[in-house]
């Protein structure tokens, strides 16, 4: 497994009304091909900011950020983001058209192939029956599933997920986490996942980077042998370890 994403000594700062705000300072980590990598930390630790920088939405002030050895300069379909917000779907397009559209504009697929690909990925998230619906007719969980299908259909090098389940109710969230694990088993897509939930981090992450706030710094990067299972002894042990690291 080679290194896919390299983040070296990255500092992110941006201007605010009260002067320059340093969100993240001196952060280094590497994500390997096919790995599920979680950024975990309390709110305000800069984890979302880091993900936005990887996505290319935000410039870095210092350090280096590379995907397959190439500097990340702008957003692109090789790093597709699933956002927390439900309004990430285009409301004027049907569910199917939402998945087809990026395949046409970002991948340049001809219409029949784009449609066929979109249908396949919608079936994968169990929404093929809702292809003709409009986003406002879907529940929050369904919207997030469409967003995941849309991202995966683009076949990015990396999937970036910014607290995608944080706005869902607890039951739907659990279900979505399990579906994401199943999808990952099927696709082995490299995942960078941002969350503030210890449970979620331990369930999903092969490795967990714990950030400390103000400005965000790496507290520790933990290996997580318990990934993929809920409530096991191993998972509880890792959760306790994360808690200890966070409490330091």
């Amino acid at each position, binding site marked *: 497994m080679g290194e896919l994403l390299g983040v070296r000594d990255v500092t992110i700062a941006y201007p605010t009304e009260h002067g320059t705000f340093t969100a993240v300072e001196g952060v280094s980590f590497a994500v390997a091909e096919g790995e599920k990598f979680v950024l975990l930390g309390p709110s305000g630790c800069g984890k979302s900011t880091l993900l936005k920088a990887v*996505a*290319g*939405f935000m410039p870095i002030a210092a350090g280096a950020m590379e995907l397959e050895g190439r500097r990340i300069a*702008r*957003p*692109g*379909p090789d*790093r*597709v*983001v699933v*956002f927390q*917000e439900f*309004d*990430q779907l*285009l*409301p*004027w397009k049907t569910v199917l058209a939402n998945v087809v*559209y*990026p395949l046409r*504009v*970002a991948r340049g697929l001809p219409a029949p192939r784009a449609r066929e690909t979109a249908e396949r990925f919608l079936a994968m998230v169990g929404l093929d029956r809702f292809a003709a619906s*409009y*986003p*406002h*007719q879907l529940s929050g969980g369904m919207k997030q599933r469409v967003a995941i299908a849309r991202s995966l259909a683009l076949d990015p090098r990396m999937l970036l997920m910014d607290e995608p389940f944080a706005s869902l109710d607890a039951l739907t969230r659990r279900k979505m986490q399990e579906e994401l694990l199943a999808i990952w088993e099927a696709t082995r897509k490299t995942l960078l996942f941002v969350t503030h939930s210890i449970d979620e981090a331990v369930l999903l992450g092969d490795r967990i980077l714990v950030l400390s706030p103000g400005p965000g710094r790496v507290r520790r990067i933990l290996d997580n042998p318990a990934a993929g299972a809920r409530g096991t002894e191993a998972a509880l042990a890792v959760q306790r370890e994360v808690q200890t690291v966070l409490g330091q």
Partner: protein
Amino acid sequence: MTRAATRTALRKAAILAALLAAWEAWTRLGEVSPLLFPPASTVLAAFGRSLANGEVPGYAAQSLQVLLTGMALGSALALVLTTLAVSTRLGAEFLETLTSMFNPLPAIALMPLSLLWFGLGVQSLIFVIVHSVLWPMSLNTYTGFVTVPPTLRRVGQNFGLSGWRLVQGILLPAAFPYILSGLKIGWAFAWRTIIAAEMVFGVAGSQGGLGWFIYQNRFEMNTDLVFAGLLTVILIGLLVENLIFRWIERRTVQRWGMSAGH
């Protein structure tokens, strides 16, 4: 239609019928001079005649053609201005200054200047129509652009879209509810402006659309045709607002579950 809506419609029809009856009774019983205020039946007959002989439809088509040309030009200009305004700070300040200056100015007030610059012709009319459409359209489109959720903008960038492709693929459709309400306001301004502006042509003795038709018939004391012209102005206004714009809304904003903040 729901039962409440049907009842409202029935009540409104009854109000209209009562008004017409009162009008008819007052003009006939009160022996009002038909040169000043012809009875409702005479007006309706004149309206039917001028519809049948193609006079009113012809003038209405003329007005609408000029209006649509002006609206198309005004909307295109609004799009250019707002694209500039969302891409540069100077563009935004430029647009804000222009709209705050010109929005309070009634378009018809520019008619004398317009006649001076473009002469007695269609260009003069188009100029004032453009003016009446441009500012409300720009204001609404700009509001639409700046209220596009940042997430949607990022989604577009994530697909590799930038510049005009981002505007056309994401910003325009996302701002569509605002653009549509801009079009509605623009239409309302433009329709009132064109009728008024054509009267100036009446003054100048040249040819024009419905406004001119009304003015000319007043000149010839065909008061029933003046009323018929006014009726046409009302009917077209209602038709466009309640049928055409409602139809567009049902097929777009409503179907998409999007609505502008006003």
